[in-house]
């Protein structure tokens, strides 16, 4: 029955059954009390892919990840990981997942090595493999000098590394990282991103973030999630292109704003002109229709009025703005669907 309805919807369903699918999420819905945290979410993660969840706080990212990792079951819908259902075959799923929760919960009274040993045993690894892997992950996460330190004495950045170390300890096929770079200093952020990209070469990685440049940098594909719904799913580049409906120029002109503004507004193709005065400088933002180039027209107009053109710059939309548009304006959803 469900197969029929899926096929009438066309391509996406067929794509989803592709052999290299590692995670398949179908009509996922989860309620906390009467309120849905996520509603009818569908997506597929391919083997070896790095997928990013992007969304503001409370969008449903953590809920989705908790369901993926088998921590709690969905209210409705199904999630399979490597062919195993997260509810029916929870144990099989948990064997294959490495998870870093957002708050990086660790046993602060244990040393790094003892903690990793403990987590390794919980993951049902044998003693020899645990010892070998602890050496590996301490190396990969650069915890060498701290392996005998109590976790409670480590800084936030190092705790984050321990969190990642325990997630990759058992060489899981899927890594689920909830906000892996939150609350650590910029240098460590760069290191962590590099590490995730490295890991993403062999493993399937699902990560969440509310920082757009980060997701566009690390991830091959981005799901933008807002109020429990997926509002966009594409590569970071495609997302940016898709949405570049309006472009804008930033122009600084020396001249009386009262005269400049109407003249700029009169230019053919300009859809919106706004004045942004800064101390000593009058800047204007000119929005214009896609595919046009107003730079030539503007520069000639300015000179013909005997004003001075101080600077001119094309602003295409950043992911930041795309994100804002997707999550604030409803009309944009139709464009993407």
């Amino acid at each position, binding site marked *: 029955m469900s197969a029929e309805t899926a096929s009438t919807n066309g391509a996406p369903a067929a794509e989803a059954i592709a052999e290299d699918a590692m995670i398949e999420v179908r009509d996922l819905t989860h309620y906390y009390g009467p309120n849905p945290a996520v509603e009818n979410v569908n997506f597929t993660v391919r083997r070896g892919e790095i997928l990013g969840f992007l969304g503001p706080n409370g969008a449903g990212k953590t809920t989705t990840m*908790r369901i993926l*990792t*088998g*921590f*709690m*079951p969905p209210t409705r819908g199904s999630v399979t990981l490597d062919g195993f259902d997260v*509810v029916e075959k929870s*144990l099989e799923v*948990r*064997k294959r*997942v490495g*998870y870093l*929760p957002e*708050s990086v*919960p*660790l*046993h*602060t*009274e*244990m040393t790094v090595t003892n903690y990793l040993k*403990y*987590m390794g*045993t*919980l*993951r*049902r690894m044998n003693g020899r493999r645990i010892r070998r892997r602890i050496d590996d992950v301490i190396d990969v996460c650069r915890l060498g000098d701290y392996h005998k330190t109590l976790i409670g004495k480590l800084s936030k950045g190092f705790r984050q590394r321990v969190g990642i170390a*325990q997630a990759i300890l058992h060489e899981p096929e899927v890594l689920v990282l909830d906000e892996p770079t939150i609350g650590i200093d910029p240098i460590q952020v760069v290191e962590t991103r590099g590490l995730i990209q490295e890991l993403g070469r062999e493993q399937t990685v699902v990560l969440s973030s509310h920082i757009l440049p980060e997701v566009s940098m690390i991830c091959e594909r981005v799901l933008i999630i807002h109020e429990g719904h997926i509002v966009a799913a594409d590569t970071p580049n495609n997302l940016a292109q898709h949405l570049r409906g309006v472009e804008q120029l930033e122009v600084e002109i020396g001249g009386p704003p009262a005269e400049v503004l109407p003249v700029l507004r009169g230019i053919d193709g300009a859809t919106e002109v706004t004045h942004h005065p800064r101390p000593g400088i009058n800047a204007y933002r000119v929005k214009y229709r896609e595919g046009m180039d107003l730079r030539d027209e503007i520069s000639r107009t300015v000179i013909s009025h005997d004003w001075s053109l101080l600077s001119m710059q094309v602003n295409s939309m950043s992911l930041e703005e795309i994100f804002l548009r997707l999550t604030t304006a409803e009309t944009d959803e139709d464009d993407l669907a």
Partner: protein
Amino acid sequence: MRTIRAVAFKEIQVYFSSPVAYIVALIFMALSGFFFVRDLGNPFPEASLSNFFQGATFLLIPLAPALTMRLLAEEQKLGTIELLLTSPVRDWEVILGKYMASLVFLLFLLALTSYYVILLLLFASPDPGPIYSGYLGLVLYGMAALAVGILTSTLTSNQIIAAVVGTGILVVLYATAFISEVVTGVWANVFNQLGFTSHFNDFDSGIIDSAHIVYFLTVTALFLFLSIRTLESRRWR
């Protein structure tokens, strides 16, 4: 089995490196010692551990929940439960591992009291029977009390609430003996059978009755079962 042992071993390490367990041990030893010597000042003291056993059952009412309060409440508070339960470990393995750790600590406490026995043997000739049966009864009683504590620790992320509610349940199970003295007829018997006290007293008198063993093991199993179901309940809550 290895995972149960890993969970238990980790918790035992925490016990022996945290102040709470030592405070519990200190209070237990000081007060149980007081119960032990209480009658020894009499002109004709009895060479038995009966006073100690009776006192210990009373002391375990607040102390057993104090030992178990941290075990699951803290994991829930800190969020470490999320990593524990997303590891390929079954819920019953988690509960059993934690429970085993608390039981080991209780046995350690009881082992410390063995010097009361040594004192008696040195200075008198006590009847060994009631000492064996008394310790057996105390271990069974402690097993049930710890299981109650595990349940309340599973129910909340607040250790204080876990300890207080656990103590409350144990007080009720201890006090049913008093209720049975007030009510009459069938109810007197029901209340008498329900609580810990009447089942423990035979052990103290040197009687090993399988009915009492079954009672304590049943209470233990029941509360551990409820703990496992509570942990599982996140799946449908």
